[in-house]
């Protein structure tokens, strides 16, 4: 239940955008995918996922749509918008730049 660290908070948006970029998904599926790829490392709780989703929706990066899911239910599916794709590209580039720099520093120390 712990809140993710600041670093993770910043990257959570990027992760969600990345996941949603692959195909429209509902909250549950996104949470499963998050856990599947990173739960242990990032410790994203389901509790922080939904506010993040709503924030991204409000920013116009993802858009939501109610459609039928399995078991005769309707679920809210999120998909990436044009603005979101641009944001994802920007954040990915940013992330790559920073991680390259950091890993460079880390390697420097080891050498």
């Amino acid at each position: 239940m712990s809140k993710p660290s600041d670093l993770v908070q910043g990257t959570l948006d990027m992760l969600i955008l990345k996941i949603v970029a692959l195909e429209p998904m509902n909250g549950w599926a996104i949470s499963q995918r998050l856990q599947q790829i990173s739960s242990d490392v990032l410790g994203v709780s389901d509790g922080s996922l939904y506010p993040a989703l709503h924030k991204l929706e409000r920013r116009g990066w993802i858009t939501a749509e109610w459609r039928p899911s399995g078991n005769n239910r309707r679920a809210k599916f999120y998909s990436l918008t044009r603005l979101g794709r641009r944001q994802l590209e920007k954040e990915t580039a940013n992330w790559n730049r920073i991680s390259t720099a950091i890993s460079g520093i880390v390697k420097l120390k080891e050498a």
Partner: protein
Amino acid sequence: MSFERWFDTLPLRWRDRFRRKQVDQELSDELRDHLEQQIQVNLEKGMSPEEARYAALRALGGITQIEQQCRDARGHNLIENTIQDLRYGFRQLCRSPGFSVLTILCLTLGIGANAAVFSWAEGILFRPYPAVAHQERLLALAGTARGESEGTGISWPDFLDLQRSSTLCDAFFVSKITGSTLSIGDHAEVTTGSIVSANYFDAIGVRPILGRGIEPGEDVGNNAHAVVVISYDLWQNRFKGDPQIVGKMQRLNNVPHTIIGVTPEGFYGTFVGWAMNFWAPASMEETFESGGYKLEDRSARWIESYVRLKPGVTRAQAQDEITAIATRLEASYPATNRGRNIKLWALWQTPFNNAHTLLPTLEIMTAVVAFVLLIACANVGNLLLVRSFARRHEMSVRMAIGASGGRLLKQLLTEGMILAGFGAAGGLLVAYWCRHALVLLFPARSGIAMYLPGEIDWRVMLLSAGICLVATLVLGLVPAFQARNIDLAGALKAESSGVTAARRKAWMRSGLVVFQVCLSFILLAGAVLLLESLQRIRTTSPGFSTSRVVETGVSLVAGGYDVQRAKTFQDELIDRVRALPGVESAAFARVTPLGYGTYSSTPIAVDGYQPPLEEQPAIDYNQVGPAYFATLGIPLLSGREFTRGDDENAPLVAIVNRTMKARYWGDQDPIGRRLQVKGKWARVIGVAADSKYESMREDPKPFFYVPLLQDFERGPALNIRATVPLQNISAALLREVHALDRNLALYEVITLQEQVDRSTSPQLVAVTLVSILAGLALLLAAVGLYGVMSYAVAQSMRELALRLALGAGSANLLRLVISRGLKLTAAGVFFGAAAGLALTRLLGKLLYDVSPRDPWAFGAALAVMTITTVAACFFPAWRATRTDPARVLRD
């Protein structure tokens, strides 16, 4: 980017705001969906249903918190906050209805007065012609001549040359006011109409609702196209809305005209002041105008015309082009055009209709209503200060529970907006009611429909919105400014406040009252100055007798008379009128003094007088019949009056006025000397006293008279000196005219006093409006004073009670409180007098024979202000004397 996002999320935010329930429902659905799927997974892991449920809830965290976090994540809504503020604001304002109503009333008056005056300015000066297209590009066209007043007419050939040569103008069109006697059935009535160029209706973009407009070519020839377009009002009122009207014949000035069209409702022609009822092509000019056929006469300057610039062309560019054309015309036709130019005028300066007579009044009104608005705002500011004091507690509480300064400011601005919004709406309503009020202030005249419309268009709306915006800021910021001092105020609360302490705290309120008194004083002084002027202008002698002389006219042009018949008719009518009981004398003249008609003007030459180089002395003159001077009561200083003997066969003669004699003959006796008029020499046979000719405000100017029979015009005015009342005259007069010719109609029969009053009606209107508004300002200032004094008394109850307990009498207390009010007034009057001495000069043209610094006016304003102050302070002071010292001191 940010706009893109704003735009993309618009539907989302819309839903968040207005589909709140649905959005909330969806949020819980979404979370429940998540929970159910988690429970399903847990069940599949082998948990019991209850265990599975708890585990799922644990994993997700508190649903309510998550929902709240999600709502927060969606962001606070500006619209939502505003609506919340609005609701709260309304509640607050309803809680103190006295304050709200008073504030809104003040603003309504302030904004309403401004919007009304602005709508008049808009409707009379800037867009004066309803239904006419592109008025922003319309300019008036008038001739100028060296050595003469500006704004003469233009000749028809010059007009045609302009039309042909100009490249910067869309359209030139003529619209010359004229009148006609319209007899339909057995009812004859004089009505106003225009002589227009054939392109008139196309140029102004007005399409007749029935029939057609005047077509190209119909303004060519002499009496060649007897067609007429009539107004909607005329069609409805006189022709009973006859649907078959087009093609019917109507006699106008005794010439049958075919009615070819009816203009749309709400079109009144192109003349400021009067509504036009018919439009005839210029080819029919001779039927309506005196002075013969003038379409080929370059020296006959009679038309009033307009021009519409092409889009993007400035007035200066067009003026350059027109001056160039006029210079060319001067070179080609020196005989008629020497020293003449043609000038463009903005519509509000048009020299040939009533716009320019109303201009000074409207200018002053604009300043006056601005003052009223400021006074109203000062009142509102005062009310707000009191209120902000009363709301100190509320504000402290809201701040204490965490409202940010910005949030409070927004709330206060919202309340200000509500007040100002109501004020602006009320103001526009006032303006709407008053939009046709201006015409009511003018004396009515029969037969001619006065038309001075106000126009409430987007510009007036914009102005009101602007005032509203400023008011909102003031209304919001004043309490906010006070709210900054909340803690200080709270600290001071415990201390008892005496009159002096209250003064320190209320310096701002006192300042506002001083400001109000200052402005009201200026208005009062201005109103008194105008009143004095009106008084003087109406008691000044115009140089002729006014009460016993009746003036009317018989349009012989309208009757279709030729020159010879007209002369005979005039002689016969004069004989018949003179024989009427109570009539002393009667005389025809071409122009009535102070009327709308313009005098003839001619360059003159005098034996022995060498005009300075470049001066082309052109002097106005009037053609008058025998016994004119006796009839009007203009004294003859020497020589003799015109007689019937001074006819076309006798030697030419003239009578000059005293100013003309002094200028051209000095000390010598002009009688028997020669004067050249229109190229012919005449003998001076008399000298008349100076009188007023065109305006009561004019200075004495050179002027002369020639016999009507020697310079004949068919459309003259009839003046009658009588000892019996006007009503008796007019009935008898009509009988005599009808005895001679049943088809003739008389113009309005009025006394010359009435004529003088009409010519000074702009002054009357200015006095009336400024007085009303000054009274309003005084009332507002009195309310402000009353408020401040009541408040001061309430604040210093303890001190006053103490004084009472120590033996001060009621008179003492009354004096204490009233003297404080008088101090405020004194300060206001001091500043008001200082500003007034500089500002009343702006009344300029409206003042007559009164110095703008007239001590009487300032003294009267001071007296009124002092009385008002004492009245406003009396009730609070009286209340102070009624306090029960024991109770107040115990509390």
